[in-house]
């Protein structure tokens, strides 16, 4: 008699999944701008990832796959909020209560970093997202296009606008405090 073979569910590689959590939290923080909402988003993303685990191709980039899910979960949740209250806007609103400093201010020892983060909050979520994926995560533009389901050309134009806007915002801080590079 041959030993029994298992035909359990295909899973996700759990060590890789755990390893991806810090980056998911960072992406979520950039999207939501607030720690506990960001972690809610990460939690929803992981749950969705398990639901869709059969869609993940073994050996492919788990981080990019999870980013795609996170983006979609975020967009869907946002659409829901917008349906419920018609006047919610996340775009470039300096008084947007959704955006706070992604990290505690006392963790930041350089004034330009603090300012940069504040100015990030004045960009639209679309632009913040592209900036994070390109400049911080250092993903290829094609990968970013895949994650966001937009053409590569759109990735590049958003990135260009995000950089220019951020540079202008940093150059002209509302407080009058100028950052010297």
């Amino acid at each position, binding site marked *: *008699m041959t030993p029994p*073979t298992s035909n359990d569910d295909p899973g996700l590689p759990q060590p890789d999944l755990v390893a991806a959590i*810090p980056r998911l*939290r960072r992406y979520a923080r950039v999207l939501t701008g607030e720690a506990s909402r960001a972690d809610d988003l990460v939690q929803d993303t992981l749950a969705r990832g398990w639901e869709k685990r059969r869609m993940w191709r073994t050996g492919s980039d788990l981080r990019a796959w999870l980013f795609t899910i996170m983006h979609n979960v975020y967009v869907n949740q946002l659409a829901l909020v917008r349906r419920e209250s018609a006047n919610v806007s996340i775009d470039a609103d300096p008084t947007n209560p959704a955006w706070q400093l992604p990290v505690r201010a006392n963790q930041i020892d*350089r004034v330009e970093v603090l300012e940069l*983060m504040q100015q*990030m909050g004045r960009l639209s979520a679309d632009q913040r997202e592209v900036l994070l994926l390109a400049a911080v995560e*250092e993903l290829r533009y094609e990968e970013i296009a895949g994650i966001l389901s937009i053409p590569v050309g759109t990735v*590049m134009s958003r990135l260009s606008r995000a950089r220019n806007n951020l540079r202008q915002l940093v150059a002209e801080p509302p407080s009058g405090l100028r950052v010297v590079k």
Partner: protein
Amino acid sequence: MKRVETSEADVHAYVDGRLSAARAAGIDEALANDPELAAQVAAMRAQNAALRDAFDLVLAEPIPERLLAAAVPPHPRAQRSGSLLQAAIAAATLIVGIGLGWFARDALIEHEGTPTSFARQAAFAHALYASDINRPVEIWAAEEKRLVNWLTKRLGFQVHAPDLSSVGYALVGGRLVAGNEKPTALFMYENADKQRMSLQVRKHPPGTGETAFRYAHENGVGVFYWIDDACGYALSGNVDRGQLLKIAHVVYGQLAAAEAAPPPSAAK
């Protein structure tokens, strides 16, 4: 001055290290001749570095417990300790699955000779009948001989009800279960803790071949199943895999011994 090829897109790709070597060389050349562009590139690089500095701080934060928990598969074998209620829930879930077209799918799979559908149906039948306290079987063990003869007649080949007393299970009785094309015989067993287990037997199309013991876990019911001599067997229960395998070995051994013995004359 050559500024022909320095599109804005290329400059961004250059800063992000995403430009092909040939075009990057073009930018290098342009930078040497264009201080304004050089300053722009330097500013973009500084911005990238500042963003990384700022947002790398998040990576260093400890991961909250709830997120670590969310990285664990959501279906641990938690439902394994089988209660009758759980079995009933499993049965209800499977009925919905079948209603949604599992039967059609199973029939297709079966023609390809994959026995997994057998395991799913076996789990369904087990969940349905093991949870029935008053009427889990059609013929009780008190009339074992009549039961075996009846099932043998209905299935068209000699069936046996193994004696599982060595592993603490007594025969409760048996019933006929509707299969896709052919009926299935079900023998129900019970231990001192009122835990039930079922052995299901049916004819498989010729040429199905033999299979190793295979394990499936369907909605809280564990199933070991195998095909031997064009007969499919499925042992289902809400016990852990090791225990179920042990019992499957006993069943297999008894059936092999029964096959070797001369057929009882009672079958007609």
